[in-house]
């Protein structure tokens, strides 16, 4: 369903596109997308939450969807942008939060930095445990990292003049299927119509072409895990069993001991990383049940 409201928030000069579903006077539920995604991927899931009495607020991270392409990108910058949006819709007020993948990780960080903003938190397969990719012995790990760094630098040399490759809706959907192998052709083709723009020579994903999967840095995925144990808000973590390129592959036994007190962990063996798109009704029902009465 097309969002009920669409507007932009200025985040220190970076324009952030916000989409909302539901009654404007209902309590706020922030719905946060993951890396390489955008808020319109919630076009089916968000209305299910809104129908239960929530004002669902989702925004495109900088460089994603309809938000500005920024000079620079970082996890901390995403956190700041999120706070700019929350300050607009619910300044200093506790809200319900549902975050998927990197969106779950960003909001886990925010829950440590600014716990007063949270009333409850559902994290959909956004609990990182290890680096994505195969487990390698030390000498191969170093080689792989060196190769990744070189590839990243070569990518940076090209992005000064680069733009995304144009194509038909079917072609863009096929490319995205590499990231979303479990999602239907019809859904991916729909995503092109809301996540890409049509130029004279074809459709192009709006995602900033300087963004790239993978990456390297001193940050360890486990850092996010350490924050979990200290969370003081009602917490529902959802993990999935079907391996996918975009998933972290985190399994319950790896994170159980880091769960916050009285936190709940659910595991779905046969569902993939995009659980809210594969089974929107089931996930909405579970989240709504956990979040309780909006008022």
């Amino acid at each position, binding site marked *: 369903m097309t969002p009920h409201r669409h507007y932009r928030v200025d*985040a*220190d*000069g*970076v324009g952030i596109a916000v989409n909302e579903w539901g009654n404007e006077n209902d309590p706020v539920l922030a719905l946060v997308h993951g890396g390489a995604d955008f808020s319109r991927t919630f076009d089916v899931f968000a209305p299910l939450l809104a129908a239960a009495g929530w004002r669902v607020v989702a925004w495109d991270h*900088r460089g994603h969807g309809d938000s500005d*392409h*920024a*000079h*620079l*990108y*970082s996890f*901390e*910058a995403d*956190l*700041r*942008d999120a*706070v700019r949006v929350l300050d607009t819709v619910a300044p200093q007020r506790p809200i319900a939060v549902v975050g998927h993948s990197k969106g779950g990780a960003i909001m886990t*960080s*925010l829950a*440590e*930095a*600014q716990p007063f903003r949270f009333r409850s938190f559902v994290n959909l397969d956004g609990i990182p445990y290890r680096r994505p990719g195969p487990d390698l012995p030390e000498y191969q790990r*170093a080689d792989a*990292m*060196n190769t990744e*760094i*070189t590839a*990243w*630098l070569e990518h*940076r*040399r090209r*992005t*000064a*003049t680069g733009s995304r490759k144009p194509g038909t809706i079917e072609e863009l959907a096929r490319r995205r299927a590499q990231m979303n192998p479990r999602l239907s052709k019809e859904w991916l083709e729909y995503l092109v119509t809301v996540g890409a723009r049509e130029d004279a020579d074809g459709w192009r994903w709006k995602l900033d072409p*300087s963004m790239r999967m993978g990456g*390297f*840095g*001193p*940050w*360890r995925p486990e*850092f996010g895990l*350490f924050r979990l144990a200290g969370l003081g808000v009602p917490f529902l973590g959802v993990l999935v069993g079907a391996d996918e390129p975009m998933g972290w592959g985190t399994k319950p036994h790896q994170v159980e001991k880091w769960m916050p007190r009285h936190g709940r962990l659910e595991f779905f063996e046969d569902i993939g990383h995009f659980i809210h798109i594969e089974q929107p009704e089931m996930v909405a029902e579970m989240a709504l049940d956990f979040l309780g009465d909006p008022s």
Partner: protein
Amino acid sequence: MNTITLRHNRIELALHELRPAIGDGRPLLLLHGLGEKTPTTVPIDAESWSGAIWGLDFTGHGESTLPVGGGYSAEVLLGDVDAAINHLGTVTLIGRGLGGYIALLAAGARADAVHGAIITDGPGLTGGTYESSVPQVVRLMNQGETPDPYALHELSRDVRAADYALDFVQFSTANSELSEPINVSATYRPAWLEAVAAAPGVASLPISDALDLYR
């Protein structure tokens, strides 16, 4: 001073020639510290260098682009240095503080194009802690001029992990033609730099001797 503008993604970088070559040898590239910019004259330590002497203004510093809305990382500054290397060819690097850390990253990432990296004292040498600390959500206002307050805030706290720094030492020593491609001249050594200085393939000579070594 001859200044060239390089492009790194959406950033325009200022690369300054402080002095043309006075003899043979490759260029020396100066990397300034956090909140600094390329000096206008050749530092005394570098006067004896016979090749050309250049200095790069990092993103958000000096005459380079002031980005909107922050989002800095040491890895982005590594990309800045890579743009300079792409223009100058093989260089010797000497970095102050943060610039010293970036010199190390560049020596590892582009071992074939960095003929020695010298890490010296300067602003931003320490970096943040290894264990990720409480995330900071602050709003900073720039005055329309460099240095960018977001650069100062974010790059003074980026995680500097010893094991990560040692990866770059390993890449450098494995792929450089030099037996000691990294030199630590800094007096102050935070944990990551202590680990680097103790690693095989890393010298700890004074600046002038290190410049002689890489000449």
